């Protein structure tokens, strides 16, 4: 096994997909010759050539539009939006076409495409480069929304997304690209899309999160246990669509208390959907109201204010204590 960071793990998944299936094709800006602004596509042009790794002009809607057409001729395109904030140029293609073709043509034409987007703040970038808008994509029927949290699950989930017969929005937490390393098996592995992972079992409160926010959540565990005698159960969603309601409900029935943490803004954010499902299926197991630890309902601020914006271990501890002591 190798110790890889997420960037290298994603690179590995792309390399494996390109090698195994001639029909896999990467399309994005600066992904070939410049090897990607985050170097996720490092070395791929050299290894697979310009027919497989396509440097595209600054035209996101065309990237996705082209991908849709390629799907109809048997390709499996993996598109890259250089930053999730640029993805809205492709919104029309994604919402009105990519997500609908299977339905529209009753299954005659399908779109086995992946649209990769680096998301989230924490790297002190300029405007439009730090968004978390997964809720928007999750709301569109016909799409899967997958959000890895670490190198190993990133590689497995990207592989699974490419193999998936339907369109997947693959939201990559850019702040986690090089933040830490993990053992990643040499042999290709996949994970089922739509299965959450109970990262830590506990009995007092369920803390649900995904993506880059998993790190502050896990940092909060020690303080919760040692200083507050609270034993948290931690759930990593790994995908918003499909959402693993069963795992969530099982955990809530066990603990009766819940904190949900995400970087995306609070209003109509993913936590709201999760709470709705908990209220639908496990209301009578709740011992306390549910608390959300989220970004604020403002645009990600610049540089020095980025830190207070983002959910951190301190905020998670506070919310968990409040809920545990209700």
């Amino acid at each position, binding site marked *: 096994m190798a110790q890889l960071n997420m960037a290298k793990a994603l690179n590995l998944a792309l390399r494996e997909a390109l090698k195994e299936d001639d029909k896999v094709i990467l399309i994005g800006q600066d992904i070939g010759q410049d090897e990607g602004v985050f170097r996720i596509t490092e070395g791929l042009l050299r290894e697979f050539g310009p027919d497989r790794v396509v440097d595209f002009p600054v035209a996101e809607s065309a990237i996705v539009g082209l991908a849709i057409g390629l799907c109809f001729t048997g390709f499996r395109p993996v598109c890259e939006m250089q930053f999730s904030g640029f993805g809205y140029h492709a919104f029309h293609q994604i919402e009105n076409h990519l997500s609908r073709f299977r339905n529209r043509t009753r299954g005659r034409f399908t779109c086995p495409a992946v649209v990769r987007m680096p998301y989230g703040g924490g790297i002190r970038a300029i405007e439009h480069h730090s968004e978390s808008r997964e809720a928007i994509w999750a709301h569109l029927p016909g799409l899967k929304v997958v959000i890895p949290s670490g190198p190993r699950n990133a590689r497995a989930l990207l592989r699974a997304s490419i193999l998936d017969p339907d369109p997947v929005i693959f939201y990559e937490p850019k702040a986690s690209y090089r933040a830490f390393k993990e053992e990643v098996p040499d042999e290709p592995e996949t994970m089922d899309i739509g299965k959450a992972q109970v990262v830590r079992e506990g009995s007092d409160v369920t803390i649900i999160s995904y993506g880059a926010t998993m790190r502050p959540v896990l940092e909060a565990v020690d303080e919760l246990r040692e200083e507050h005698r609270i034993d948290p159960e931690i759930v990593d969603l790994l995908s918003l669509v499909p959402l693993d309601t069963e795992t969530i409900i099982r955990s809530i029935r066990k603990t009766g208390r819940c904190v949900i943490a995400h970087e995306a803004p609070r209003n109509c954010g993913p936590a709201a959907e999760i709470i709705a499902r908990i209220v639908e299926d496990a209301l009578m197991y709740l011992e306390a109201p549910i608390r959300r630890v989220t970004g604020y309902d403002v645009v990600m601020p610049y540089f020095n204010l980025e830190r207070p914006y983002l959910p951190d271990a301190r905020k998670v501890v506070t919310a968990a*204590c409040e809920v545990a002591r209700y």
Partner: protein
Amino acid sequence: MAKQFILPDLGEGIHEAQVVNVMIREGDTVTQDQMVMEVETDKASVELPVPYAGRVSKLNVKVGDTISVGQVLLEVEAAGEMATAAADQPPGPDAGVPATAPAADTTAAAPAEPPPDYGPGPVPAAPAVRRLARELGVDLRQVRGSGPGGRILREDVERFQAASSKREPAPAIPPVAAAVRPTPATAPAPVPVPATTTVPVTKAATPPPPPAAALAAEALPDFAQWGPIRREKVPQIRKTIARQMARAWSIIPHVTHGDEADVTDLEIFRKEQGKVFAEQGAKLTLTAFILKAVAGGLRQFPQFNASYDDAAGELIYKDYIHLGVAVDTPRGLMVPVLREVDRKGLVTISRELKVLADRAREFKLDVAEMRGGTFTITNVGALGGQFATPMINWPEVAILGLGKLAEKPMVRNGEIVVRKMLPLFLSFDHRVIDGADGARFVNTIATFLENPLNLLLVS
């Protein structure tokens, strides 16, 4: 508006306490930090200082009451001040967390006895508590809440149900069927709701069937039907012991291995050295030797100094050796813990042992002094006994019991001689330790007691 004095978090995961002394009355004037009551928690006694100065406008507890963390004990009106109504909660949310304030900060203290008039609106209780009430057939409107803001807690419902199963006809509970909404098709296993929840209560009543939620004891018969009886409230410490013993017994498969150690030579040494010790202000007891021998044994058999994490499938080895020593006190069994026994000499151990035992008997032990043990020793020998099956102090994995030290005829080299024999009986957790290791451990302890110099060889 008066300030509420809420029972603060007493630490160590303790949720409730019993009031053993109340030093003030309603109407008294108190100063800040004045001691106003004494409560008995999980094996220790704590005095509570009131955080506010002023006149006690409401006193909600009396001696004998069981109170919960977060419960309003009394209210203080500061002279001429408009105090805020905010409840004195443990660490509040950061300014940065956009959380809504908990509902608990609009309150009047819950009245002492009958249930409050909840009016036509909903009764304050969390959904899980509502479910429990429904399963037990308890009408929430009849229950007084002891939680923040008069909220009804689990314990309130459980206590109400236990009390009402003895009473003469309990109030009929309105059928719940009308209020039940059809559960959505997507819901997994819907919570079972009885069609009617009227509880038929007569003098020799059978209480409602046990709920799905894990609840306490099964129903007892009405003993009064066979003769006179008398009920006595047990002290908090007894309730704690009951809970912990039941838990240890149900979680741990106990096996006990018994043997004897020949302590004749040790006793000679002890009596000789006793005089030296007395000069250093310590009494050299056999227990101190036992502790040292056990510490030596634990170094060689670290699995006896561990805890078992069933869920993770892991054995947690501890690098420290803190020994609990069971002490019989007038109020019940207490187990103060001596720390780092492997690093202390006999004099220190003897001294500390005496201090802890005295404090245990005077009921002055801190809760902290009874936590963190890795292994326990219990000595009933003074009262007698050849063998017993001591209960393991979960989450430890073993406990050593000592019987009565007595002279016995033993065979040595084909001859009968009189030796001083000390019975040892070790209960251990058979999930973690097999019989062979149990025997080896006891043999090692016995060897140390028979040849104390062997202890010098332990690293």
